[in-house]
Structures are given as structure tokens and as C-alpha cells.
């Protein structure tokens, strides 16, 4: 056991505080090259990370940067700066702490590079940007420690891959660098340890006391949940009752649109005018900060929120977490529950509110999973090549590099340690020449090799453009929403461009809990007026729609298999009993398909339990195949557990449609031309630097100068289908929006065992599907037909004769 400097132990003693065992353990192992701490939210995790830094800096003999702290949120960096400032001031330590994010003024950023603080708090993107400067080695000289906060969140996205690549660069500049990861409870800590440590350094994992098990149950309501829908309006009186009985309640929703609607309806029912706020990622930053400040002051009794509150900032007095809608993912549920009651030894309290009858089953499955302590996680794939391409460009900005040296640096990072030299060279070639089968641009290559064999930017001015496009976060294109007033009213928030495009003046929608009326679009700002008298049209914000995890899907099927309804409320048990008597219940190792006529059309429901994205992809592939077979499909809708297809002709023999070879061929051939693939392509092409989101001229004129990624995709598909970007797109399609991996998992699970049940009418399990939002019309000739009808209508309205 090593001793802490007296100035620190005295500071603890003066406050009557004890050092937590995990803080002590972290301090004792401060010399380890890599350390991972798993601790619930709160619990002094941050201090555990910083204690060794404070000790090493306490006598003031370190010059320059000592510790780099990285968090996924800018707000968290600012929060930590304030939290560190207090003990440093109280102990009178000679330590300078500063943050550096996209919000930091340029003058301070410049000064930081010349005269860095002892502790710099930043984000993965800002760190990547720092490594792109020629003077990076000077700035990073002498750095001892890097602390990665909320590493579980970073490791789930490409931001984590980028961070690990940036650290591999830093480590080459400061070989003694020690890494510390701080993580919430996760399913596979060893995977995060492998991800964060320099390969092949060991990484010890420390666990803080997780505290007593959470008190989590389903909310009891007088009214049963409806068959379908996601609003959970039926539960509002019961939720308000809970808010009244607790100090502070967080009410989590899965999407921003749902949060807005729930908040709106909650206020209509809020007779005691309890102070309740709303917080989500589409709201204006000022508005969010106001809510956060009110929360910290203890002015609010409840906050309706989304994943924007999943991370970071300590909310103090929260004593209840309510999850509206099925949690979809047990790990995230557990992390959300952890936001209640940070007090030592008090159990976190949480309530689940299913939004519909099926979600009751999912909530029961989630409760079992939490009780069993099994978290879900998809195994992390290898480091993606689009992020590597960006990394190579960033390296070129910093100065000429040797390809072999960079390769050997890259494979020290966890996500890329299995990277082949061949793949690396393909990425380098893409960065240098575009990597096309048709060799072009020899004179205008982005990177050129000099006489000594080093790679460098052909035109050094390109560095500015590369730096402007650093990052892996894909913002959907959003437009600011502003009240129409005398010029420059406060922004209320943002909506997706696609949503704005559907608005006609006079339409109403919800934002920030108020109903507003769309007045018009002005210089890329949606102008609205306040309007309280109309029922709002729903805002379809991007807010990620998570797919139900593989584990939860399996647990639901297991409940069906055991036919043990004891944990289910009576209404749900009866519903399942009727399903069983008129048809069957879905099973894990068989595929249930029901066909029935409804509303004069043939309907077919496929219970794949593969998650929303995969079920949607399944719908796209199967309807295309049906079109080829002349079955005239008209549309489909997908949920996490099933796909419902309707059309003119019934399916007689479904088996050939679900053969894995057929599905795979569908992915390779026609799905390649589909919008989901194009969106996947756009994300990777932007990260890899093929498409520039920001250009100097665009910043000046405010106009986008980018190329239509759809046209680039179509061109590559036609002329260069094996191009690196197309390979990356196909790879990405295994997960995410397309999620083909889960279709393959389903095909393997059912292994050709298909039960096709033909019925005279819709079944209890399928009925809610008829009410689902998000119906997808089948394209093909459909769009042309729609256009023809609309053109005729418009011309007739305009009094123009349409007969040719």
C-alpha cells in the first residue's frame, strides 16, 4: 500500500470522509500501464480516476501536460472541471485544469497548445484534432496518464475506435503513458479491458461495491395497457401519483417524439402543477442547460427525458427512475436505474411501464434478466476501416509518415490489433488515390510518397479541410426551430430536415413541450408561432430506435415456451391464451408465419424475433421476392418481434422465401440499391473522407457544397462494386440499420422449421401490428404510380386538360 500525500489525507480527514476501497485500490495500482474500474454511477468514480494525478502533481514539480481526461460529453468535461476546481483550491494544489471541446474559444485553444495545463479535459474528437497538429509531440511530451470516463459508452460506437487510434499516436509520443478506464456496469468487462489497453499490455479490472440490488418492478395501473402503441398515456395518472410520492423522478423514454407527447399529456393531467421539465437531444442547448440547472437546484420534481440523460452528470437527489416503454436492452436499463439513489447503501428504485400488451411480456423478461444479473451485449466487431481511413488522413496532417511505422502503431490499439497489412494498405491507397479500379487523379492524389518513401499531403492546404471533418458522429441533417418574431428569436430546438419537408404552413407539432404552428422556412430555419388550440401533428425526431436485444428476444420466447404466465398480469395472460388456442405461440427454434385475410387484402405475419432493424430488412427482402413471384405486395410494417406484409395475393408456400441463401442473395442484389444501404454508405463515406460535410466555402456561405451521396453510391455500385467503400458498406450492413447479422442468426436458429398457419381472421398477437406506425409502402412501380396520380390531380386542380 502506498501512502497518499498528507495534504490529500488531511483534506479527506477534515471533511470526515473515508477513501472508498476502490479509490484506494486504484491509487495502489497507479503505476499499471492500464486499469479498468467498473463502478455504478456516482460512488466517487471520478475521484478514483484523478487521485493518482493529484498526488503526482501535488508538489508542483511537473511541467506541462500530465493527465488527459476524455469524456463522451462536452458538458461532462465542463462539469468535471468545476468538480476538480473545488478540492484543488481547498488543498491549495499548484495544478491548472482546463477543458477543451468544440465550444472552447479559438484563442484559448491556441494558448493551450503553446502552454498546456496540467490536466486537460476533452472529448475524443478534440483529442483526434490535437494529434493532427505538427506540434502535437511537443504538447504531449511528458503526459503521464489518460483517464477515459464512461468508457462503456464510448466502446459501443466508432468514437471509441477513433479514440483508441488517437491514443496509439499519443503513446508513440509519450511511451510511459498509463491508461485508466472508468465504466458503468457492463456484461463483459474483459472486452472493454482489451479494447482500451495498449496491445499487448495487461489491464487489471477493479470492481467497486455495486451496492444493494435495485428495487425494480412493473408499475401497477388501474387501466390495462392498450393492445398497441407506444405512448403509455393510460399510465399517466399512476406516473403522476409516483412523482407526487418521491422527491425527484427521472422518466425515461425510448424516443424523443414519445418524450414530447408524454410530457405534453402529462402537463394536461398535472392538476397540482408539479414542476416537471423535459430534456432531450433535439432541444436547444440553452433550454437543456436551464433544465439541468433547475434539476441541480432541486427545483424540479420530475424530468421527462431520453438517452440524453444516460451519461454523466450527477443529478443528486433522484430517488425514482421510471422507464416508459419496453427497455429493449437490459444493460441500458440497469445503467438507467443506477441514476437513482447515489446514496451509499440505498437501493436504486425503478418502475417499468409497458406501453402496450406485448411490452408487458418484454418488461417481465427484462425484470428476470435484471434479477439474474445477465446483461446483454453484442460482441464488439473489429475496428472499422472507415475510421482507420480518417486516422490515416489525420496522421498526414501532422506531417510525413512512414506507412510501416503507422501500421505498427495502429495494431497496438485494441480494436485494430488484428488488422492485416493488406487492409491497412487498402485504406492507405484509398486515402492517397481514392482506391478506384480505374486509376485516375495521378496528378491530384491526396497523399504522395516522397523520395524517402514517406507519405505526405500533396497540398498542405488540404489539412484544413481534413481537420474540419474530424469525427465519427453522424448528425442527421437537422434544422433549427425558431419562434417567428422580430428577427432572431430564441431557438426552441431542432427537427430533422426530412420531417420539416413534410410540413405545410398551418401544421402543428410539439417541441420542448409546446405546440407550435409551422409558418415557413427561412434561410434554413423553421419558423413557428405558438399555438395552444390544436392537436399537434407528431414530430418524428431522429431519436434512435433501438432494436430489442438478442437476449431479451430469447427470454420472451422462453416465457412463451414455458407457458408460465404467473409473472404476467391477467389481461396479458388471457391474451396469450387466446393466441394459443386460435393459432400458436412463436418458438425459438421454429418460425411462425400466420396468413389471414383482412380488409380485403392478404396479410402475412412473420414472427422472426430478430429486432426492429432486421425485421424491417426482412420485410424489404421478402416483399421484393414476392413482387418477383407476382404476389403483388403493397406494403409492410416491422416491429421488434414481427414483420406484417399485406398485398393482393396470399402466400401459399412461405418456406422458399426464408431460405438463408435466398435472403443472402436478396442482400447482395436488390437490397444493394435500397435506401437503407445508401444511408449506411453515406455514414461510412463521410467518416472515411470521401464526402466532406464541412468545407471552408460552405462555412462561409452557409450552404452545403457536398455531393449527393446517393449518386456516388449508385455510381460505385455500377462501375466499381468492389471498391473499399462498398466493402465497408456491406460489412456495416451486418449491424445497425440493416442488421443482417440477426437475420442470419434467425435463419440458423429456425433451420428451415417453418409453421405456416392459415386463419380466417387476424390473431391476437398480430392485431397490434395493424395499428403500428411506420408502414413502408413497397416501392418499385409504386412510386411511379403515386407520381402519376399526383401529377394528374395537380394538373386537374390547375384547370389543365390531362388528356394527351
Amino acid at each position, binding site marked *: 500500500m502506498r501512502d497518499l500525500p498528507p495534504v490529500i489525507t488531511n483534506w479527506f480527514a477534515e471533511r470526515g470522509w473515508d477513501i472508498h476501497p476502490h479509490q484506494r485500490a486504484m491509487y495502489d495500482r497507479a503505476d499499471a500501464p492500464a486499469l479498468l474500474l467498473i463502478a455504478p454511477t456516482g460512488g466517487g468514480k471520478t475521484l478514483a480516476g484523478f487521485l493518482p494525478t493529484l498526488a503526482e502533481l501535488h508538489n508542483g514539480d511537473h511541467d506541462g501536460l500530465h493527465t488527459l481526461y476524455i469524456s463522451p460529453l462536452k458538458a461532462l468535461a465542463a462539469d468535471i472541471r468545476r468538480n476538480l476546481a473545488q478540492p484543488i483550491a481547498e488543498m491549495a494544489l499548484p495544478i491548472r485544469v482546463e477543458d477543451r471541446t468544440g465550444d472552447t474559444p479559438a484563442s484559448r485553444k491556441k494558448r493551450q497548445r503553446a502552454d498546456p495545463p496540467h490536466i486537460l479535459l476533452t472529448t475524443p474528437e478534440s483529442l483526434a484534432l490535437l494529434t493532427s497538429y505538427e506540434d502535437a509531440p511537443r504538447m504531449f511530451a511528458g503526459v503521464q496518464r489518460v483517464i477515459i470516463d464512461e468508457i462503456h459508452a464510448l466502446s459501443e460506437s466508432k468514437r471509441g475506435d477513433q479514440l483508441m487510434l488517437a491514443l496509439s499516436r499519443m503513446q508513440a509520443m509519450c511511451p510511459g503513458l498509463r491508461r485508466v478506464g472508468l465504466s458503468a456496469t457492463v456484461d463483459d468487462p474483459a472486452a472493454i479491458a482489451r479494447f482500451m489497453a495498449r496491445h499487448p499490455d495487461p489491464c487489471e479490472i477493479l470492481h467497486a461495491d455495486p451496492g444493494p440490488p435495485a428495487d425494480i418492478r412493473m408499475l401497477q395501473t388501474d387501466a390495462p395497457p392498450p393492445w398497441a402503441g407506444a405512448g403509455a398515456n393510460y399510465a399517466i395518472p399512476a406516473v403522476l401519483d409516483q412523482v407526487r410520492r418521491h422527491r425527484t423522478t427521472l422518466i425515461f423514454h425510448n424516443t424523443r417524439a414519445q418524450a414530447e407527447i408524454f410530457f405534453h399529456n402529462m402537463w394536461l393531467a398535472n392538476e397540482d402543477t408539479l414542476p416537471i421539465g423535459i430534456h432531450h437531444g433535439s432541444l436547444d442547448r440553452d433550454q437543456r442547460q436551464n433544465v439541468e440547472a433547475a434539476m441541480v437546484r432541486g427545483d424540479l420534481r420530475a424530468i421527462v427525458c431520453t438517452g440524453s440523460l444516460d451519461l454523466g452528470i450527477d443529478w443528486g437527489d433522484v430517488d425514482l427512475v421510471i422507464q416508459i416503454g419496453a427497455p429493449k436492452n437490459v444493460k441500458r436499463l440497469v445503467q438507467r436505474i443506477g441514476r437513482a439513489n447515489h446514496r451509499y447503501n440505498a437501493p436504486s428504485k425503478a418502475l417499468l411501464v409497458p406501453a402496450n400488451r406485448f411490452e408487458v411480456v418484454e418488461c417481465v423478461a427484462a425484470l428476470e434478466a435484471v434479477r439474474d444479473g445477465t446483461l446483454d451485449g453484442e460482441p464488439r466487431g473489429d475496428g472499422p476501416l472507415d475510421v482507420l481511413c480518417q486516422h490515416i488522413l489525420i496522421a498526414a496532417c501532422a506531417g510525413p509518415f512512414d506507412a510501416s511505422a503507422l501500421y505498427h502503431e495502429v495494431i497496438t490499439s485494441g480494436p485494430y490489433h488484428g488488422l492485416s497489412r493488406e487492409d491497412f494498405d487498402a485504406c492507405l491507397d484509398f486515402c492517397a488515390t481514392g482506391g478506384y479500379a480505374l486509376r485516375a487523379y495521378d496528378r491530384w492524389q491526396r497523399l504522395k510518397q516522397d523520395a524517402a518513401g514517406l507519405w505526405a499531403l500533396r497540398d498542405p492546404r488540404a489539412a484544413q479541410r481534413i481537420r474540419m471533418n474530424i469525427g465519427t458522429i453522424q448528425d442527421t441533417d437537422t434544422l433549427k426551430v425558431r419562434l417567428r418574431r422580430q428577427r432572431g428569436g430564441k431557438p426552441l430546438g431542432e427537427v430533422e430536415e426530412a420531417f420539416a419537408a413534410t410540413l405545410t404552413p398551418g401544421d402543428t407539432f410539439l417541441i420542448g413541450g409546446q405546440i407550435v404552428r409551422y409558418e415557413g422556412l427561412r434561410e434554413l430555419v423553421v419558423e413557428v408561432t405558438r399555438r395552444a388550440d390544436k392537436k399537434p401533428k407528431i414530430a418524428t425526431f431522429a431519436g434512435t430506435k433501438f432494436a430489442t436485444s438478442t437476449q431479451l428476444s430469447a427470454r420472451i420466447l422462453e416465457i412463451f415456451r414455458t407457458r408460465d404466465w404467473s409473472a404476467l398480469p391477467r389481461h396479458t395472460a388471457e391474451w396469450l391464451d387466446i393466441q394459443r388456442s386460435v393459432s400458436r405461440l412463436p418458438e425459438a427454434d421454429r418460425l411462425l408465419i400466420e396468413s389471414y385475410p383482412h380488409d380485403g387484402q392478404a396479410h402475412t405475419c412473420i414472427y422472426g424475433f430478430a429486432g426492429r432493424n432486421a425485421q424491417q430488412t426482412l420485410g424489404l427482402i421478402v416483399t421484393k421476392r414476392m413482387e418477383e413471384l407476382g404476389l403483388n405486395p403493397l406494403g409492410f410494417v416491422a416491429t421488434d418481434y414481427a414483420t406484417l406484409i399485406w398485398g393482393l395475393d396470399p402466400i401459399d408456400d412461405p418456406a422458399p422465401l426464408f431460405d438463408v441463401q435466398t435472403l443472402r442473395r436478396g442482400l447482395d442484389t436488390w437490397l444493394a440499391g435500397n435506401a437503407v444501404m445508401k444511408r449506411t454508405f453515406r455514414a461510412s463515406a463521410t467518416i472515411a473522407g470521401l464526402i466532406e460535410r464541412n468545407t471552408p466555402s460552405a462555412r462561409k456561405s452557409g450552404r452545403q457544397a457536398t455531393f449527393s451521396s446517393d449518386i*456516388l453510391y449508385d455510381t460505385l455500385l455500377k462501375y466499381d462494386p468492389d471498391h473499399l467503400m462498398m466493402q465497408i458498406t456491406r460489412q456495416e450492413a451486418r449491424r445497425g440499420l440493416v442488421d443482417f447479422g440477426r437475420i442470419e442468426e434467425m435463419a440458423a436458429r429456425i433451420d428451415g422449421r417453418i409453421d405456416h398457419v392459415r386463419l380466417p381472421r387476424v390473431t391476437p398477437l398480430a392485431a397490434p401490428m395493424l395499428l403500428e406506425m411506420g408502414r413502408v409502402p413497397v416501392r418499385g412501380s409504386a412510386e411511379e404510380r403515386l407520381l402519376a396520380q*399526383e401529377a394528374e390531380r395537380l394538373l386537374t386542380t*390547375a384547370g389543365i386538360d390531362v388528356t394527351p
Partner: protein
Amino acid sequence: MNKISFTLAGSRLDALGSGALWWGDQGILCVSDLHLGKSERVARRSGQALPPYDTRDTLNRLAADIARTQARTVICLGDSFDDLDAARSLPEDERLWIIRLQAGRRWVWIEGNHDPGPIKMGGTHLAELPQAPLIFRHIAAPGASGEVSGHYHPKASLRIRGRQITRPAFLFDTDRVILPAYGTYTGGLRSTAHELSHLMRPEARAILTGPTPHMVPMPRARQ
């Protein structure tokens, strides 16, 4: 053929789904804003290496339209090359391809703002071409009549059942027709833009290009 016919200054013209204009009586095929060599120019100016297949794709489509119409004259309405350097550095096989397309027919290059000077390419180079009763030029001149022009890359959007469909579009009224851009990597200007609303008469119509062209009243900004 996949087309919509309309009349300008007494001449019957066909708007093809590909974005080309066909004047059958004269055997004239007119295309605008090919922007050949665009990806080369982008690479030269910014280092961004777009897929270098745009020229090939544009010529493929043009060759198909020529074969289909058996055009005796081809008029390229300006901005045929993304800039003069792009015209000069066109790869040899693409140059030869253009020469093959030119064989046996009259070929007119109208100057555009991107390619204002002479280019070393067979065919006639003109600032504008009067071909009574029509006149072909790159940028529409206010007050003109019987005018065929390009330059603006017009596109039109329709909102149908909550879905927005946007296509490059012809705009025409009794005085003029403005062609959509024909080049593969060309973006577009919405018909609702101020310049276009100003230029076109209130009763103007738009013809959306695509597998089947569709005619609608020209969409304008609502006020």
C-alpha cells in the same frame, strides 16, 4: 418513347425522361450542363477523390439517347465541361468516345460559364445558336421568347402522402424552356428558388424526369 411533348413557339418538343430535349421535326437532340470531367476538377481543387466514373456514366446515357433518337444534330447547351482544364485533361478513351458520338452528325457546343473559351474538341463552338423559331443559349435572357436554355439545374419536389419526391425537371412556359442538368454529378436548384420563380411565367409547368416523366404546375415557394 418515354417522353412528354409540349409546344414552344409553334415547335413541338419532347422532354425525355433522361433529361434531354428532342426536337423531332429538326432531328435535334439537346442536352445541358454535362459537366464532363467534374470529378477531375474536384480532385484538382480539393484533393477529394470522388469515384471517377461520372464522365463515363454521362456519356453512356447520352449515347443511349442518340441511338434511340437517331439525332442528326446534337446541341450541348453549355457547361459541357466542368472547366476548361477539365476539358483539356479528359482521358484519351473518353475523348475518343465523344469523337465517335460526333461521327456522322452535326455537333454544337454552346459556351457556358464553366467553359467560356474554345475547347480542343471537334464540333461547332458558339455563344448561342438561333434555329428559327427557337434560340439555344446557356443562360436564359429575361424577355426572350422561343428560348431553350440550361444553367440553373432546375429540380422539382412533390410531396405525396408524407413522402417527398425530388427529381431534376424541365421548366417551361410560353416563352422558354429550361433544361435540367444532364451530368451525373450535378446537383440541382429547386424550382421554388427566387431566380426561377422570377424567370418563369405564373402558368409555367415542370416536367419531372425519371423512368416516366411527369408534368405538374411548376412548384413555387408559398407565401
